[in-house]
Every structure is written in C-alpha cells, then in structure tokens.
C-alpha cells in the first residue's frame, strides 16, 4: 500500500511533466503539421539554462528566465529554419528538426560536457512535505505537480479565452481551414512554436533537477513523448493528457516490480531451469522490461486502434 501510494504520486508528477511536453508537441503538430523532433531538445535546454541561471542568480529567477530563453530559441527556429524549409514539404521540415536535435545535443556536449551537471533542487524546497506511512514524500515533487497543474490551467484559459487560442482550437479540428481565416498565419505559427518550446523549457526547469540533467535526456524523453502522442492520438490534447498519465504510470510502476514469468511458472507449478527453451525471455523481470513497455503499448495500440486513444485523424 505504501509502495503503491508513493509510486502513484511519483507517476502522477512524471505524467504531468510528460503532458507539458506532449501538449506542446501536439499543438505544434496540429497547427503546422510538423512533428518537432527537437521538442525534447528544448526540454533539455530548459534544464541546462536553468542550471546555469540558478548558479548565477538562483532557482526562482531561473524558473522564469530559462523558459523565456527557450521560447526565444523556438521563435528563431520557426522564423529562420522551419519557414525556410516549409516549401520543401513535411519531410524536409521533419528532417530539419531532426538535424536541429542532433546539433543541440552536440552543442550541449560542447558547452557542458558529457557527464551530468549538478543541477540541484533548491534548498527551500528540499524538505519532506508529508509522510505516507514510513516514507517521507519530498516537497519538490509536490511543487512539480503544482507548477504542472498551474501550467495546465493557464494553457486551458489561453486556449479557451484568447483570440489566438480560439484559432489554435479551430485548427485542431479543421487543420485546412486556418489559412482561410484571414489571420496572420506565420505569426500564429511562430507563437505556437515558441509557446510549445516554452512549455518544454519549463518542464526542463522543473524536471531537470528532479531527475537528471545530462546530454542524453533529450533522446530518452523525446521518444517517450512521441509514444505518448501516438498512443493518445495525434492531434488530440485530451488524448495526450490521458496517454501522458498512462505512460508515466507504466514507466514508474514497472521499476518497482521484480517479478518475471519464472515467478508465474513457479506459481503454476511449472518447473524451469537455465536450460529451458527461451529461458532468457522468461527470466526478464517487469522492472527490466520497463523501458520496452511503452513501445509495446504503442505497437498494440497501432494494431488495434491506429488512430490512437482519442485521435480523430491520421497524419
């Protein structure tokens, strides 16, 4: 029970973090038809910028400065990169963001090195918020959830109460119609792209110190976010939300289970030994299989429901 509650809270905070990434990715994809490969790179840059800023002027300014810096980079990427390759089609756009992700990772290597940096949780938040049975639950995790939920609410109001939000919503359901609305489409694109980057950057600021800030973080989170988007249904914010929580839970919970099929066989009274056929497969524990589970879920979803959980369209 204790394990379950703690893990549930952890998976919730992680799932919300995933949603901060997948929501931006979904918005950008829906509006522009571009799958932003560099989206997780913005997450990584958010963490590194926050690390650098918090060393100079502290964590709280970093919470604001880093996402803004990432948003600025996002705006530049859209304006001078994507807009240039747009005329060559979606493949070129996708490849551009792929190349960008590649370069950002190398630049991070170049500036901050290959080892993880010491981006720490601020001392003010480094205490235990409450205890569940014998486990002290860290306050920072609670703070992460608060920031994510706060961001969610802000996003909700931005989408439902502002002009640009309404245009974005319209584009989610009728992607072809945006251009005929007579709005300044390039500027809307730039705003969405920068906004998505800012969300990713913020996720990096609060996630980088909770997990680890290293050059490989973009690649490892990036593919999970893609899985979330495919699983939830491309272009669906609600789907992305549910999928973020589901995938977050799968990843977090699987770490805690050291059971394999061998245990099941033992329960069923089936004798196994190291010589049995496929022994390698049977002895894999759930925690070892954890990294694969999200991808297996995705493949299953694709076989049985190609549009994803709540998707309405394909690509």
């Amino acid at each position: 029970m204790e394990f379950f509650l703690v893990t549930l809270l952890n998976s919730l905070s992680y799932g919300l973090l995933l949603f901060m990434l997948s929501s931006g990715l979904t918005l950008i994809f829906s509006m522009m038809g571009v799958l932003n490969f560099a989206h997780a790179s913005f997450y990584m840059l958010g963490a590194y910028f926050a690390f650098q800023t918090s060393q100079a002027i502290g964590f709280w300014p970093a919470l604001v400065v880093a996402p803004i810096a990432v948003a600025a980079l996002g705006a530049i990427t859209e304006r001078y990169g994507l807009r240039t390759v747009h005329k060559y089609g979606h493949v070129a756009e996708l490849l551009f963001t792929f190349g960008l992700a590649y370069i950002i990772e190398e630049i991070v290597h170049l500036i901050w090195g290959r080892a993880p940096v010491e981006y720490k949780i601020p001392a003010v938040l480094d205490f235990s918020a409450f205890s569940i049975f014998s486990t002290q639950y860290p306050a920072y995790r609670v703070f992460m959830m608060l920031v994510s939920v706060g961001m969610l609410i802000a996003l909700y109001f931005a989408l439902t109460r502002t002009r640009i939000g309404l245009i974005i919503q319209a584009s989610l359901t009728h992607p072809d119609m945006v251009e005929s609305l007579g709005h300044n489409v390039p500027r809307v694109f730039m705003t969405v792209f920068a906004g998505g980057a800012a969300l990713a950057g913020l996720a990096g600021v609060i996630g980088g110190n909770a997990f680890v800030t290293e050059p490989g973080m973009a690649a490892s989170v990036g593919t999970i976010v893609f899985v979330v988007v495919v699983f939830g249904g491309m272009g669906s914010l609600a789907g992305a939300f549910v999928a973020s929580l589901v995938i977050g839970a799968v990843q977090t919970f699987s770490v805690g289970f050291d059971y394999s099929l061998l245990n099941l066989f033992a329960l069923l009274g089936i004798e196994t030994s190291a010589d049995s056929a496929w022994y390698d497969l049977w002895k894999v524990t759930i925690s070892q299989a954890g990294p694969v589970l999200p991808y297996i879920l995705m493949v299953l979803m694709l076989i049985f429901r190609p549009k994803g959980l709540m998707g309405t369209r394909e690509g």
Partner: protein
Amino acid sequence: MAYQPPPLIHRKRLLTWGLTAAVLIVMPLIFKQSFALSMMSQMGIAIIFALSYNMLLGQTGMLSFGHAVYFGLGAFFSVHALNAVGAGNFHWPVTLLPLIGGVAGLFFGVIFGYVTTKHSGTPFAMISLGIAEMVAACSLMFPTFFGGEGGISTDRVVGNAVMGITFGPSIQVYYLIAGWCFVCMVAMYALTQTPLGRMANAVRDNAERARFVGYNPTHVRYMMLMLSSFFAGIAGALAAINYELVTAENVGVVASGNVLLMSFIGGIGHFFGPIIGAMLVTFIQSALSNYTLAWLLYFGLFFLVMILFAPGGIASLITLHKPAWEVAQVRKLVPSYIVAGLAGAVLLVGVISLIEMIYQVETKAEQSGTEMSLFGIGFDAATVMPWVVSVCILFVGALLLWMASRYVRSSWTQVAAVINARRSA
C-alpha cells in the same frame, strides 16, 4: 505501332556498370594503406545500407527513423550463424553469409513492416522510431542474444580455405564486400525499373491516386519495406564479417539516424545520390574524427545547411548543372563558384575557431589549459583577442558569402538565358 523494348544491356548501361566494377576492383590497388582499405570496406557496407534506405525514403516517400533495426538484426543473426559455423554446428560458406543476414532482415521486415506500413507520412516516421527504440531496449534485455554491453564477437576465419580464400586478410574481406556491393547495387537499380519500383514512385507522389488505378498503397509500401530490409540485412551481415563484432549500437537509433543523414546528404531524388552520400559521410566520419572531438557538431551543421539550401542533396547539385553542361556553359559559372568557395572558407574559419575555442574553454580546459592552436596559430583562449578576431572573421565571411551568392545568381541568370535560347531554337 510495334513497340521494340530497349535491350537489357546497352552501351551506356554497360559503360556505367563496367566502370563501377572497375573502380571497385582497382581502388585497393591504388590505396594500399590499411586505413584506406578499412575505410573502403566501410564505404561498401554503407553504400548497400544507404541504397536500401533510399528504397524507402527516396522511392516510396517513407521517412524511417528505424532502418538500422534490419541492419542490426541481420548482423546479429549472421554473427551467431558465423559462430555456429566456427563451432562446427552448422555448414555455410562465409561468402554467402550475407544471405543469412538478408533473410533475417527480411523476416523482421515482414513482422515490423506489417505494423508500420499501414501508415505513411509523419505517423510512419514516429512508429518506425518507436519500433527502433523497442528493439534497442530489447537488446539490453536479452544479453544471451545481443551480448549485453560488449556485444557478440566472432572470428570470420572458419573452415578450410577455398582457393586460398580464408577472409583473414582484410583485402579479401574488401573484395567480398565489393562483390556484394556490386550485386546489390545492380539488384536495387533493377528493382526501380520493375512494375513495383515504378508504383513505389507513384505511391510516393500520390498515394490516393495509386488507389484509383487499382493499386493498394499499403501493399506497395509493405513490399518495398520488406525488400529494403532484405538489403539492409545483407549490409549488416557484411558489417559483422568486417568488424567481427556486433553490438547493440548496430540496431540503435543513432545508427538509423546515420543512414538517414547519408542518404539525404547524397540526395534522395536520384539513384546514385545515396552512393555519394555513403562514401562522403563515411569519409568525413573517419577523417574528421581524427582531428576534432566536435566533429559530430560540424557534421550536424553540414546536414542542416544542406536541408536549408540544397534539399535535393549533392546529387541534385550535380544534375542541376546538366543543362548548363549540354550547352557548354559550365565554365561561365566557375569564377563565381570560386569566389563563393573562398567566401565560404572565410566563414568556415570563423565558425571553426569559435567552436574549437568554446570547446577548449568549456571541456578541455581542466586537462590541457586554455592554450591552444588553430590553423597553425597558437593563442590563449582565455584572452579576449582571439574571440574578437573570430567573431570578426565570422561576420566578414558571412558578408562576403552574401555578396558572392549574388554573383553566383547573376552568373546563373546569364547561363539560364543561353539554355532557354538554345531550347527554343
């Protein structure tokens, strides 16, 4: 109107392929150094892999981020087969080992392709990435098959020598690779000339219309993916023979990204594009990595510049000049190209010195201090002066390149006028 099919072998084709074969045979006689030989072997493998990748991207319009899955699994199956041959449990000539790799690649193409090819465009790209991640994650779960961190090693010298060929010396391995490379090139080219190959192009251009002329685009994509994974598996098997080691990296996402870069830089719109790309990228990777640790960054920048300014790759830059060549106008472009090249070199010097200085200060300073030398000039990167100079060079280079680009454009306008005049005449 009786149609006479063109002969299968005609002069131009014979010349092209004959020349290709001759180059493959003669190269190791010219470049005898061992590093050159190993680089050429790598190139041969890369050419097969990149061409097989382009069956998807260039010919069928499928952007895959997971093609190394078929390459890597082909390599793993071949390495186990080779070890079994070595242990005497299995009889199979090493020369034909690539067939085992190919069949393994094909097998996984049949399985994964069934799931992935129901989609096209961006969803296909994402799913191919997901499958690649899945296989990469599996590779760490099953150490018996994938060998864990260390990978699976092998010895390619097995059994008795056939006509003195043991595949011990690397020159014999080179010729094995070259032979397979030639066969695969011919086979993949021939494939473009078949009904399936032509329909792959049609599906790439307009999948919906392909449906309305009776073809099922999903089926076309599936078949192309299966065939392409067969060739990728062959390349993987050759890699297993060449390196005598297969690791989880071979199925990894980085390897998949690499083949994408090769094909794209070479040019996905032409059959020979990926061949150029494979050779160039292999060369850059082995040459540049000796000089600078930041070579991946240069490589990435090069890729980005190609996407922004030459999305057709090197192949399209070459074919762009065909009309100018036909009217003997290429020489009119040369002066402007030289000027642009010089301006680009200045810009490049600025970029390189900035990157190398950042690298020195941020990463290398702890071990070797901030003293460094670039282009034969020694300086201390902790002082302001080199930075000011580098930034100035960068800006001057950018300005010069901008001016040079106008010169190139005006030269092209003149040449285009000549071409148009000849055409209408």
